[in-house]
């Protein structure tokens, strides 16, 4: 039942299309089994036979006094009937396409939407390649299943059913004889396609190995050449290539045996029907035109039988694909049951005894963090890698949720707030920002689609990016990412700053976001930004003491706890971790000469 739901839930809202398509399809199969009756009727006309089995109204319609006239009417009726059939067929196919594409569309959108709403933790652990596979290949598998296989099963079952009905109207014994081999054909096909899947997998693995070898050899071509290992590489590749060929040949032999032997069975069935049919016709059990009709009908049963076995045998593929898709769409969105509270945020921040720990960790990443920030203040957070700086920030925008304590913006606990509202008000500029594969212009404009050219150029200028962009061949229209230029780390960081400038935020976080920019540009940008963001509460994570020293308040984190807090002067005076850092970094110039002598 669960499977049933899994198979059909994606059809929601489109079932009526499916129902109409299926109904037309069933009629079409019935009509198809009528076509041999026209042939029978023609033979009846020319041999003066009786009762062709055509529906009564048609027989009356084409009744005429001479054989020639009858034939003309029959031929005409046949063509009109065909036109009727193909029109229905086309309509059925169109409905089918609309139905299928709507489902694929829904699936893709659902997957994309869900993925975006999955938690930060989920994305940190996700494997991109695998997820994409699910969103593309697995969707395609289901699309084919719904659009082709499911409908094909229906079609084949009804075609076989109607054919049997038509056959038994003529002669029951010959009908049974005509069905003798069909269960065998079905099961052989079913078993084969279930079995061969395993072999397919082996072949795919062998091909995968070959492709990996190829890829490695190409990306490592420098090593190959420098070690003069061309021959070795060629032999290695050829070995994998041959191995793939061998495995594939195994599959080929199986395939040849299967198709050859099922063809044999199908033809034996033809032979049985023909042989018995001849005997029965000679003995007067059936007429000659009935014999001909049987020859037509037998083809409508045996070939579909094999096809049916194949589709049923392939069922497993769809199940696997749907399971993999469900693993994504059944995940809970981080916005599920989110609060609708959207209080005004001005920039007062309050941390009260905040602590955080990952479920599978034995030590907390942060504990007992308490501090207050007034609107418009700047706070620098310093500390070694792993001291908890990034976690602190992730808590502030609820990429992670603190287990203990509270974080309040303007007196409201952020857990009571609407998440998206919070993030809209708290801007963050990451150390390694992601740029979308569009133009540089679009990447900046992304924060405010109504921004005009001047605004965007201005933002880029403030971020010291305008001149860099001018050097690109296509300027602002330069594509970023896979299909365009690769921006340097510093350029990416500056794009991230520029886009943030297009939006007013009461709180801003710089997560080491100028680390890849040289010191001079860093200062230049910061001076420009200070003017821009006078009234903004700013958090700065940095390793550069010169950056930190200008902040109103400096928080020094160590092993997840606040080790020191205060302004530059007081901390230097205190003589702790900060003072030490200050000492090292500010005296580098002086120290260098003495240290260098040590190296010598």
């Amino acid at each position, binding site marked *: 039942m669960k499977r049933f739901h899994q198979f059909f839930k994606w059809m929601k809202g489109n079932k009526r299309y499916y129902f109409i398509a299926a109904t037309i399809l069933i009629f079409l199969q019935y009509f198809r089994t009528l076509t041999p009756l026209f042939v029978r009727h*023609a*033979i009846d*006309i020319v041999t003066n036979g009786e009762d062709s089995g055509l529906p009564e109204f048609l027989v009356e319609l084409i009744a005429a006094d001479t*054989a020639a006239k009858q034939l003309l009417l*029959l031929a005409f009726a046949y063509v009109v009937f065909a*036109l009727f*059939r193909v029109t229905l*067929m*086309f309509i059925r*196919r*169109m409905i089918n*396409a609309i139905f299928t594409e709507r489902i*694929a569309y829904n699936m*893709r959108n659902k997957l*994309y939407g869900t*993925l*975006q709403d999955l938690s*930060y933790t989920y*994305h940190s652990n996700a494997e*991109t390649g695998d997820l994409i596979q699910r*969103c593309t290949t697995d969707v395609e598998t289901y699309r084919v299943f719904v659009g082709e296989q499911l409908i094909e099963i229906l079609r084949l079952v009804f075609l076989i059913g109607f054919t049997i009905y038509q056959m038994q109207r003529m002669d029951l014994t010959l009908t049974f004889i005509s069905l003798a081999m069909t269960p065998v054909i079905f099961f052989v096909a079913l078993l084969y396609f279930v079995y061969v899947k395993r072999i397919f997998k082996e072949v795919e693995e062998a091909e995968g190995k070959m492709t*990996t070898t*190829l*890829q*490695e050899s190409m990306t490592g071509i*420098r090593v190959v050449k*420098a*070690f003069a*290992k*061309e*021959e*070795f590489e*060629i032999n290695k*590749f*050829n070995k994998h*290539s041959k191995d793939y*060929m061998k495995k*594939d*040949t195994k599959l*080929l032999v199986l395939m040849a045996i299967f198709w*050859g032997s099922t063809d044999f069975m199908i033809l*034996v069935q033809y*032979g049985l029907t023909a*042989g018995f049919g*001849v*005997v029965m*016709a000679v003995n007067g059990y059936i007429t000659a035109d009935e*014999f001909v009709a049987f020859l037509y009908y037998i083809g409508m049963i045996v070939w579909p039988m094999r096809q049916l076995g194949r589709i049923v045998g392939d069922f497993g593929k769809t199940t696997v694909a749907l399971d993999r898709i469900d693993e994504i769409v059944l995940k809970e969105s981080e916005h599920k049951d989110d609060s609708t509270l959207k209080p005004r945020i001005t920039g007062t921040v309050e941390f009260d005894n905040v602590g955080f720990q990952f479920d599978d960790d034995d030590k907390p990443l942060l504990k007992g963090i308490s501090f207050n920030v007034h609107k418009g203040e700047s706070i620098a957070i310093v500390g070694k890698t792993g001291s908890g700086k990034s976690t602190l920030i992730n808590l502030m925008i609820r*990429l992670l949720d603190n287990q203990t304590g509270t974080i309040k913006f303007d007196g409201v606990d952020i857990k009571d707030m609407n998440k998206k509202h919070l*993030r809209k008000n708290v*801007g*963050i500029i990451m150390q390694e920002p*992601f740029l979308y594969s569009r133009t540089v212009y679009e990447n900046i404009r*992304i924060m405010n689609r109504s921004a005009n050219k001047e605004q965007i150029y201005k933002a880029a200028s403030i971020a010291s990016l305008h001149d860099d962009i001018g050097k690109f061949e296509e300027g602002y229209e330069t594509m970023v990412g896979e299909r365009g230029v690769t921006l340097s780390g510093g350029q990416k960081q500056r794009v991230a700053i520029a886009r943030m400038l297009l939006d007013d935020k009461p709180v801003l976080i710089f997560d080491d976001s100028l680390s890849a920019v040289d010191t001079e540009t860093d200062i230049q940008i910061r001076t420009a930004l200070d003017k821009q963001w006078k009234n903004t509460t700013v958090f700065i994570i940095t390793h*550069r003491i010169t950056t930190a020293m200008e902040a109103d308040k400096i928080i020094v984190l160590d092993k997840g706890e606040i080790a020191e807090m205060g302004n530059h002067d007081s901390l230097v005076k205190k003589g702790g971790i900060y003072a030490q850092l200050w000492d090292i*970094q500010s005296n580098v*110039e002086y120290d*260098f000469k003495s240290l*260098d002598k040590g190296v*010598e």
Partner: protein
Amino acid sequence: MNYYEEEEYTNSKFDLVVWKKIFSYMKEFKKHIIIGLLAVISLSITDILYPLMNVYALEQIIGAGNLDKLPMFLGFYAFFILLTASMVYVFIINAGTIQRKLSYVLREKAFKRLHELPFSYYDKTPVGWIMARMTSDSRNLSEILSWGLIDLTWGLFMMIGITIVMFIVNVKLALITLSVLPLLIIVSIYFRRKILFAYRKIRKENSKITGLFNEGIMGAKTTKTLVLEQQNFNDFDRLTSNMKRHSIRAAMFAGLYFPTILFIASVATGLAIYYGGLEVVNGVISFSILYLFLAYIGQFFEPVMQLANILARFQQAQASAERLISLIEQKAEIFDTPEVIEKYGDAINFKKENWEDLVGAVKFDNVTFKYNKGEEVLTNFTLDVKAGESIALVGQTGAGKSTIVNLICRFYEPTTGTILIDGKDYKDRSIGWLHDNLGYVLQSPHLFSGSIFDNIRYGKPEATLEEVIEAAKLVEAHDFIIKSKDGYDTEVGEGGAKLSVGEKQLVSFARALIADPKILILDEATSSVDTKTEKSIQRAIEIVLKDRTSFVIAHRLSTITSSDRILVLEDGKVIESGTHSDLIALENKYFKLYTNQFKSKVIEESKNG
């Protein structure tokens, strides 16, 4: 993942030259082609004979009213069944074999060529492009030339055979029923083209959708922090809506094609019913001949759609063939002269018995170099390096460090001037000779899938486990290796993905050390590793450089302080040269670079603690 968008179809007409070349590769399995074709031809013949058998039954047995000829009928039937089934087997085996062998041969040839091509080729050609040639193009081509060719033959023989039999049996009726043929051809051409275009559009949309999925996943954090979910979703929705529209449109053409063919076939049937029926009434033919015609009409139309499909795919395959041939016939820009190959062997078959020992003196004599159409990177560059000397190259990106190294490795050759190794122009000896004596340790070390043992041994295939361990110990890789799960048999994963950057570097040092090269190139790493590993690497470098001519492209100046000579490069010229203390004493360019780096290093260290 790559999203190469390229023309899947050539606009050019049928290109005989390309196909001739491809067919020449198929010569070696001519036997399979002939047998496969014969099998499929005999299949089309038996397919044509079945309705005739039924006519025989109708006339000679049912018509005669006795079963005298039944045994003969059944005998023939049994014979045909066996023939058909075995021919199906034979044609599948042979078609499949052609496909597999052809794609194997194509891969083999292309791969061999890839390794004969000089390094410059890889600077211009993305790996993704090469991968696409080697996988999808070779697959397309071999599929169409095996299954496609065989299906084409079957369809054609079937249609031609039926036409012949029809004409033999009754010319007039044959002419009447086949009068729909021109219409059939026109309709097929029209639809084929429409369908082709429609699906091409869909494929493009599809790759865009994949791209957005990729972006949605890779950029999830950024999207969240910028609250761009809704906006992104709308963009995505626009694309999937387009996709839906185009898909339905494509389905319309495809959905119209089959019914149209079916209708044309029905018109032919209608014609046969009327005119054939009249002939029967007039006593010209028997009703069994009418049956024969009706049966043949069904069979005649069966391969039509398949044929149209195959012809369209041939067009597509020609594009694949053109690209593959262009790869296989790609000319190497750097190659040994026939005389050199005669004496020293080529890139794949070395003649080691004729090789002189390489001592390690390297001399640039008035070398000028420019990449393809670019500006001159080196102008009249001269440098004399004694055997065993260690040289460090310092300078900004574009100063010419990599160029010098590329020239020494003969990845490129001087535009003018000569490079001498042990006093002899290196072009007078083979590339294989040079590379076999050369070691190269890379900035971003590249390992191959396989065990750590395999990777170290890459430098010397005949090395024993003891030798490998010794090399690993020397570069201090031994400790981390034995701590790994399977020791030296630990799998490194694709491209070495299971090891950390630092570990990869250590393994690559061991690999270089075991090869015992006379000249060693070290493109020093910039990637940050923890302090402990960095110290190990530092010591490893010193060990690897000992007693050989070495060139180090230095990014971290602290690693080269003990070099015999440091060359500071700017715009392809040496502006300072000397030992570390010489240059520090100068208090000029090198001094500035060094102090700056020292500063950032301190900041970096305070970060890691």
